[in-house]
């Protein structure tokens, strides 16, 4: 296997794996806080039992998230030494901040999981606040580093060496705001709908109880609150991409030609040979309106750059469609839940609803992975947009293909083991 391809696949695998666990690391502490907080207010032991059970699963998820995150921080250098060797000083700041946030999170995870019987209920509840805050903060910090790769700024490069840098300006680049908000809401969707899914499946299988309904409702609440906000943040993110990375935006939308009054394409299959996107449902002027707020505005197409500077359009477009599609399904569920709650003062009922909730977790994870494919594949062939090509950053160490093969086997085993561990905890 070509080293560049192997290294990229390795990154896809390890990042795609880690990101799911990271989402639970961000979202689950919030649910723990709510559940244990309900216990403090109502003194209903059921809430405490729920939080205590979840805390064990959280321990497993956090541990897997921590080690898979460690893998990533090593891989930055092992796979992309030229990238880190050149720009480590520019993007070091968010990673340093993230290290501190991770530290705080790890410390209080230890305290939270092991002091259920030692601390007073209130003190124990309070110990979850730093976990939640640090989880959100570390996600925010690390995403700004990715945002910088999309919108690099805050440094001066002379002869391939960074001679001057403003790490804070690098961190606060135009892509940071929308990417951070989009990622944190995604974590809320994955964790919230993920939890709700597990209980929906249980209830569909006949394991119904007030305890399970309550757990489902709590997870569903977080997912349903995040879904509409995610739609808004997605629109924001897309506008920023259209402005700062027009080529990525064109690939997302399958827009080959620079064009006034560009249509919004729903579905469709881009063909790089003929430079057309076929089989799409086209809404005239829709894309121009979404990107620029004017249905007649000019939208830049892929033809703006030579073919060698374009990402694989089909992958980006299909991933984007998958993300938006999954998001719409989650949004519809959110609207249904919200509407029923307002009109009837209860949750929707019936098997159809439970099925939808059961699918919501996998859909949220699908949207998450597809979204990362959009932002990462959409930036290709660049590792740092417009400045460093991925091809020039990859390691020349031998055996990258073998490492990827080993990683594939190891991560498959890890996934299986994690599922076994979580199922085991769920049965207890």
């Amino acid at each position: 296997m070509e080293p560049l391809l192997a290294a990229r696949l390795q990154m896809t695998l390890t990042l795609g794996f880690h990101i799911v666990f990271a989402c639970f690391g961000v979202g689950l502490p919030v649910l723990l806080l709510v559940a244990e907080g309900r216990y403090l207010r109502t003194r209903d032991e059921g809430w405490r039992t729920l939080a205590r059970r979840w805390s064990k699963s959280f321990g497993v998820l956090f541990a897997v998230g921590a080690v898979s995150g460690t893998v990533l921080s090593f891989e930055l250098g092992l796979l992309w030494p030229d990238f880190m060797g050149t720009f480590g000083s520019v993007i070091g700041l968010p990673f340093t901040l993230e290290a501190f946030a991770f530290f705080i999170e790890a410390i209080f995870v230890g305290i939270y999981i092991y002091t259920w019987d030692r601390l007073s209920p209130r003190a124990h509840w309070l110990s979850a606040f730093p976990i939640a805050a640090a989880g959100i903060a570390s996600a925010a910090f690390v995403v700004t580093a990715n945002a910088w790769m999309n919108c690099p700024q805050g440094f001066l490069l002379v002869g391939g060496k960074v001679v001057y840098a403003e790490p804070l300006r690098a961190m606060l680049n135009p892509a940071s705001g929308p990417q951070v908000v989009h990622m944190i809401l995604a974590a809320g969707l994955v964790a919230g709908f993920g939890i709700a899914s597990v209980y929906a499946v249980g209830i569909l299988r006949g394991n119904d109880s007030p305890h399970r309904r309550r757990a489902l409702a709590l997870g569903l609440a977080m997912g349903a609150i995040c879904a509409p906000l995610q739609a808004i943040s997605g629109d924001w993110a897309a506008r920023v991409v259209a402005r700062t990375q027009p080529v990525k935006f064109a690939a997302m939308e399958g827009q080959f030609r620079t064009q006034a009054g560009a249509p919004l394409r729903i579905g469709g299959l881009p063909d790089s040979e003929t430079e057309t996107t076929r089989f799409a449902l086209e809404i005239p002027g829709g894309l121009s309106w979404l990107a620029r707020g004017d249905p007649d505005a000019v939208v830049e197409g892929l033809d703006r750059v030579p073919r060698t500077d374009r990402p694989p359009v089909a992958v980006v477009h299909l991933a984007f469609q998958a993300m938006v599609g999954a998001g719409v399904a989650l949004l519809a569920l959110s609207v249904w839940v919200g509407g029923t709650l307002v009109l009837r003062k209860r949750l929707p009922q019936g098997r159809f609803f439970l099925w939808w909730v059961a699918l919501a977790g996998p859909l949220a994870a699908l949207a998450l992975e597809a979204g990362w494919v959009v932002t990462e594949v959409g930036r290709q062939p660049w590792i740092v947009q417009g400045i460093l090509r991925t091809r020039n950053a990859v390691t020349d160490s031998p055996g990258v293909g073998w490492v990827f093969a080993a990683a594939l086997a190891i991560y498959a085993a890890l996934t299986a083991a994690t599922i076994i561990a979580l199922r085991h905890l769920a049965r207890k």
Partner: protein
Amino acid sequence: MEPEILLIGVMTAGVTLYALMGGADFGAGVWEFNTALRAGEKERALIYRAIGPVWEANHVWLIFVLVALFSGFPPAFAGLSRALWVPLLLALLGIVFRGVGFAFRSYAADSVRLKTVWGAVFALASTAAPFFLGACVGAIASGRLGVSSDGAYSGDHLTGWINPVSIFCAFYGVGICAYLAAAYMTREARNEGEAALTEVWRRRALVTGLWMGLLSAAGLAIIATSAQELWEGFKDRAWPAVFTSFGAGTFSIIALWRRRFTGAALGAAVTVGAVVVGWGLAQYPALIPPEITLHGARAPREVLWTFLGVIGIGSLLLIPSLVLLLVLFKGKRPDDA
């Protein structure tokens, strides 16, 4: 003061704390590996109770040092990533499996079969991780890595890291972890009122301590014969650390003998800490000897000051949190005993 000196000081502190805290966690696994056929359930339970609440945090020191390295000295990070490709991947494998092995074993396994499997994974991986991390340290210290000042690597990608010093340090790393774990566990066992286990761990700590003393002397001999630059550094600058380590090691052995277990644990920590600091002093100002130096590889100074400021502010949150963690789980626990 120059910011690169301050930053390397902070990083040395980070490596030291990783050795003292993360190293002890590895060491517990090393002992489980060595005693796999004999360790009783009670002994295992004590190990898991001791590590459980703190291992996640202990582990973050490694991330912290790694991040500081690529932020402050990017070419050094790139150079090490190239030159230590094989041992870093193997260490990473150890780190991953010792983490998940521990988590699955302690949170999610109550069948004997699962416990045995994850316990074995934890034990094996806990031994592999310090072995290969030790090899990395030795490979750097040996001065034979062939990394040029811009971070390019001219050595062999698969075997360039293997030399007498790196192989010695691999075993020495495992030994350090085992020694620390035994010294700490003696105290843990005493605090939990486990008289028989206290004796077991005390004997282990004494024996390992004495062996590590001999091994340290042998290590200096290896350095003197096969890493001339490093040996000069020890003679010039690092000798106070060597004496400190020797003194603290002797103190910890005597304290173990006299059953002063808190003193013995602290003594062991100073012994190991002085080894890490001694390594740093001996190769100063080289980061990857001979070509990559602190001054040559540093990021622009204003960037280093920003990092130092952030580290200072972050420490204001981190240090009280760490103290809270240690007080809760490693302080005196009259109510639990």
